[in-house]
């Protein structure tokens, strides 16, 4: 407990499974349930995809460093990359997802465009994780942290 586990992979789509397996193995060892592990897999997938597509802009530009840490209170995953600053806060919620069923054609196009800028992935993270933090540092690059609280605040 409290120790850190680190994985560094090339920023490529074919590395995303390695990342999600790494993180969900940690989550499972930490005692997270199956549903939470699925949510974690989805969020890590989306975070990694966003790094490749938006921070780096393409595959094989840079690396993705993934770390997870388990404490009594929470399971924390951090993604770090050296791509251009890409903050979840820069991406506004792409149309209210509750209203998407009322979209006319031009709005459906707009929804689709906003999806292209990683909006949906960030939406999933905000909905499924208990905390989402972002930091950019000129030396360290982008740092995205996802936090999932332990059930009952840990045993």
């Amino acid at each position, binding site marked *: 407990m409290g120790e850190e586990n680190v994985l560094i992979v090339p920023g490529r789509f074919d590395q*995303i499974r390695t990342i999600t397996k790494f993180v969900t193995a940690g989550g499972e060892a930490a005692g997270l349930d199956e549903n939470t592990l699925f949510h974690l897999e*989805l969020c890590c997938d*989306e975070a990694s995809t966003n790094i490749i597509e938006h921070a780096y802009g393409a595959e094989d530009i840079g690396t993705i460093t993934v770390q997870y840490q388990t404490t009594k209170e929470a399971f924390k995953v951090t993604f770090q990359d050296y791509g251009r600053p890409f903050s979840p806060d820069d991406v506004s919620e792409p149309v209210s997802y509750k209203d998407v069923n*009322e979209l006319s054609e031009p709005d*459906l196009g707009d*929804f689709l465009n906003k*999806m292209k800028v990683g909006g949906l*992935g960030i939406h*999933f993270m905000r909905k499924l994780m208990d905390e989402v933090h972002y930091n950019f540092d000129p030396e360290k690059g982008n740092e995205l942290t996802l936090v999932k609280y332990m059930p009952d605040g840990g045993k």
Partner: protein
Amino acid sequence: MSTSDLVINVEKLKRVVLITVAGRIDSTNASELDDVLKETLDEGHNNFIINLDKVEYMSSAGLRALVSALRESKKKRGDLVISSPSPRVAEVFELAGLTTGPTPLFTVYENDATAVGSF
């Protein structure tokens, strides 16, 4: 035929094309689904049923492909509906707000027969 974790089967019925997908849909292979949908649209088909019963995992990349195809179908006065999504896939659609509300963007059917009957 696929070397990825994705298997896509296309069946052209009288009024609709039934596309059965199996495996995982993520950013490594969503373009395969995209290509199949685009090809079928280009052939002149505009009604689709996407069976997602055997899809164990789908990320927003998969949703993007389906929303894009839905948009093209609607432009041609057709529709794209979902048949028997697996629980995980159903959850992803719901999280994105695509199957909720009084008139959801995607109609979901419990099975192919009911979906075919709707066209």
